[in-house]
């Protein structure tokens, strides 16, 4: 049976209740008649021979690049960088794409007699990965061959000895990136392109950069003018990264970009109902939903969290391309849209979203209120091309428990951001001006980032800036089922039920608004006409 594309359902009397994610759980909501529900396209068939496809891509590069073996020779310095724990979501079943690609690259390097090889996790300002996480991403064989010899490292954006300032773009943007990577004869970057935003020049210009570099595009002004992050030509974030990427290339850093795409087969078979359309649920799906929902209700949140974070995803590789950054990324973006794009006619007054338990910054961790805001307003709101799904001045309704809980080891500066910054203002511009530098240069956060598993001190600011476009665009944000105090702290309105939320929203959008629900995950991107 051929794959079905994305679908926009109009709710009528016969439509069964719609599944909403609700953190570490889910619920069914009855949407008003006439509402629209956007469903993701069904998964593209995975590549039959991923190793073969990878090898083919490396031997047949795109753009102005020689095949990888031609770039490898004895005596050279080779650095292989790879995306960190934030991709993909949820983490994928073994073998991870990074493992498959890096093993293939290493085989070619070995054939060419390359001795000086270093692997670097491109963390930017994210937390360092644990050994288990690295083993999962790279496989035991690669880990055991490199880590014990100090040849598997994680980018340290606060290590002055291993950063190099390459100069400034014509727009005055500093480019300071990982020295080992920048001074290698060849830098191979291995991407997992979960959404259209990932990859391209962003890989090196962001993933291997320092705060000095990142601050030029991770700020409220840039984020407000990125409409959306998923549409590179309309994204100032990408424009800045592209300027930097081209500068890096002109500075002589030779990059061999490898990008991969995934299908939307996101959840294991025991959770199959999560990626089905509700009216197609069979008896097993109904039973699974009922059993899971009931058992989760009686489980303390931390156990529910453990259960969900133990899920690995069956999503599989649908394409791999390699070569020159821009040529590669153009094909990758096309492939991502092929999998995730859904045509949607017109905007809506109210957009509803059920937020899941995971976002890029809480893998094996806690989804704190700042990350809830970022996932809703930064990521899901921006899953569009053309126009936002919700109209200017419209209302965004999120469903999530939004508990004021934080992982003290992973998100120490988030706690202080929540208690010491959001208590004073929620305005991204004011926050940027008043607080960013002191958090970014705080020695304790830097210590925890470098030696522990903490996100950098400035990271919660970036999460808040991701929301800047949505905050400017929306008339109101309502969180259903969230901790009222935490929701208010974010500057949003709490509601106890979807009906309450619709009642609150009517103050902004009137009594008969249009409503659209984005049925994600699985991830999709709306092409709004």
């Amino acid at each position, binding site marked *: 049976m051929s794959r079905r594309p994305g679908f926009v359902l109009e709710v009528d009397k016969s439509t069964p209740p719609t599944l909403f994610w609700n953190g570490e759980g889910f619920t069914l909501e009855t949407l008003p008649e006439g509402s629209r529900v956007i469903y993701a396209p069904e998964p593209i068939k995975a590549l039959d021979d991923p190793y073969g496809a990878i090898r083919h891509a490396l031997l047949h590069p795109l753009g102005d690049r020689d095949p990888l073996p031609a770039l490898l020779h004895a005596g050279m310095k080779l650095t292989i960088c790879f995306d960190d724990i934030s991709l993909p979501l949820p983490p994928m079943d073994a073998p991870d794409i990074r493992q498959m690609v890096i093993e293939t690259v290493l085989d070619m390097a070995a054939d060419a007699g390359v001795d000086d090889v270093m692997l670097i996790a491109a963390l930017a300002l994210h937390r360092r990965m644990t050994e288990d996480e690295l083993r999962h991403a790279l496989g035991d064989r690669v880990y055991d061959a490199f880590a014990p010899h100090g040849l598997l490292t994680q980018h340290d954006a606060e290590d002055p000895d291993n950063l190099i300032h390459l100069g400034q773009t014509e727009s005055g943007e500093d480019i300071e990136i990982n020295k080992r990577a920048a001074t290698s004869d060849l830098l191979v970057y291995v991407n997992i392109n979960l959404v259209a935003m990932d990859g391209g020049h962003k890989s090196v210009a962001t993933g291997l950069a320092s705060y000095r570099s990142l601050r030029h595009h991770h700020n409220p002004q840039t984020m407000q003018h990125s409409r959306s992050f998923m549409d590179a030509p309309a994204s100032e974030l990408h424009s800045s990264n592209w300027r930097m990427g081209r500068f890096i290339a002109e500075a002589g850093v030779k990059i061999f970009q490898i990008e991969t795409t995934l299908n939307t087969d996101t959840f294991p078979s025991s959770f199959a109902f999560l990626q089905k359309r509700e009216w197609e649920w069979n008896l097993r799906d109904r039973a699974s939903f009922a059993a899971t929902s009931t058992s989760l209700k009686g489980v303390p949140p931390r156990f529910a969290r453990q259960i969900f974070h133990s899920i690995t995803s069956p999503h599989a590789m649908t394409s791999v391309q390699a070569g020159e950054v821009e040529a590669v990324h153009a094909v990758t973006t096309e492939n991502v849209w092929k999998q995730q794009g859904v045509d949607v006619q017109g905007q809506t007054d109210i957009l509803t979203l059920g937020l899941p338990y995971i976002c890029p910054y809480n893998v094996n961790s806690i989804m704190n209120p700042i990350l809830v805001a970022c996932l809703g307003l930064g990521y899901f709101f921006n899953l569009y091309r053309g126009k936002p799904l919700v109209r200017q001045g419209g209302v965004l309704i999120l469903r999530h428990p939004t508990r004021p809980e934080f992982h003290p080891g992973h998100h120490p500066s988030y*706690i*202080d951001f929540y*208690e*010491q910054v959001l*208590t004073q203002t929620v305005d991204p511009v004011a926050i940027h001006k008043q607080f960013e530098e*002191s*958090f970014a240069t*705080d*020695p*304790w956060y830097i210590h925890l980032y470098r030696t522990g598993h903490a996100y950098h001190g400035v990271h919660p600011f970036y999460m808040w800036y991701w929301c800047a476009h949505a905050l400017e665009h929306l008339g109101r944000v309502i969180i259903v089922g969230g901790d009222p105090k935490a929701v208010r702290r974010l500057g949003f309105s709490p509601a106890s039920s979807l009906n309450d939320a619709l009642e609150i929203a009517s103050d902004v959008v009137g009594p008969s608004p249009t409503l659209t629900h984005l049925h994600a995950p699985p991830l999709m991107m709306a092409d709004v006409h």
Partner: protein
Amino acid sequence: MSTLLFERSLPRFAAARVVSSFGSGRGAGVGPLRLVERDAPDLPSGGWSRVDPLLSGICGSDLATLDGRSSRYFEDIVSFPFVPGHEVVGLLAEDTTGADGSPLAAGTRVALQPVLGCAARGIVPLCAACQAGQVGNCGQLAFGHIRPGLQTGFCADTGGGWSTTGLVAHTSQLFAVPDGLSDADAVTTEPVACAVHAVLHAGIREGDLVAVVGAGMLGLTVTAALAHLAATGRCPAPRSLLVGAKYSQQQRLAREFGATEALPPDQLARAVRRHSHSLSFGGAAGQTATLSGGADVVIDCVGSAESITQSLGMVRPRGTVALVGMPGKVTIDLAPLWHREVRLAGAYAYGTEAVPAVAAVPAAEAVPATTTRRKKSAAEPAEAAQPREVATFALAFEVVAAMSTGRLVSATYPLTRFEDAVAHAGAAGRRGAVKIAFDITKGHTR
């Protein structure tokens, strides 16, 4: 004519202690405090006058006494039975002079400076502290021609503010309330004076990081006093003033008074760490984490073992912890104090303060401490910065006016509802209140 009288009664004292263990202020009904009919106290000697209270506050030390939690240290400087109430605004019953020597006519509204020092006790010569104007440090509190009592409100001979029959006050205790201050403003003068004294004796230097633990009446008035005194050049301006405040209304008030940040108590150490660019270590197994640096000055306005421990954990090496909240018997680990050479300093009451002699600044011009200090006018003489002795109460009146501290009086009760009043005071923060006072004019015929 009603008076609340506190008598020495061990069974009632024990009962109050038991009941108050379920919540401060709950033991008033079973404790040694009773509403009685009682005549006004006699004037002890010349220099004393009668004062008819208008409002009289309920202080943390009153609550500790009523709850049976007061330190036994005070036993010999208190005489029974006594009428509580040392935060008093009232009307003078006869002509006399004030503490500054100026004449005061009968009917003048006065704020009571309650310490019963050498002058009030008729002790000649005055002790060294009283001679220096530091009446709060008087060492003769058990001697002289009145019975022991550290303050009015704890002395069997003077009466106290919780009475319609009035109290007696010595000339040295009387301060005319400036025009423009309401009775509610005026009744806060005594706690504000405590705060002024604490701020000026905490050893704050220009650009210091200052943390205030607790945001009840003391914490809030310390915040207000520091903001005002720094803004008017009476004390060095801190670069940041962080306040640990449990309840949202306390956080709001602290910010209004000039706090850079007001946070829940469990977040205060984190904020101090961030503002001091310190590292943090320890904190495992329920221990308080210690900062590599920390606040230059921590002003503890709670006085519990927990608050003192927290203060020691967030003060920098060689910094100062000023104890303003009244502590009792506490068990704390003093290792950090020893190891980091921290100065632990008490701050009690008032007297006179040596402050730069700058012109009084109208309330409208006063700015929070953490903003730029008021620029000295070119017309102000160079010697204006030389210190001079000023009565703490005079400075307190300024703070009261500039910061409108009368707004901290959240509720007033007649004496007949003393159980409700004390219970309200004991749960003030939780119930959205700050200061509870008796309105002596309510509920009876004067």
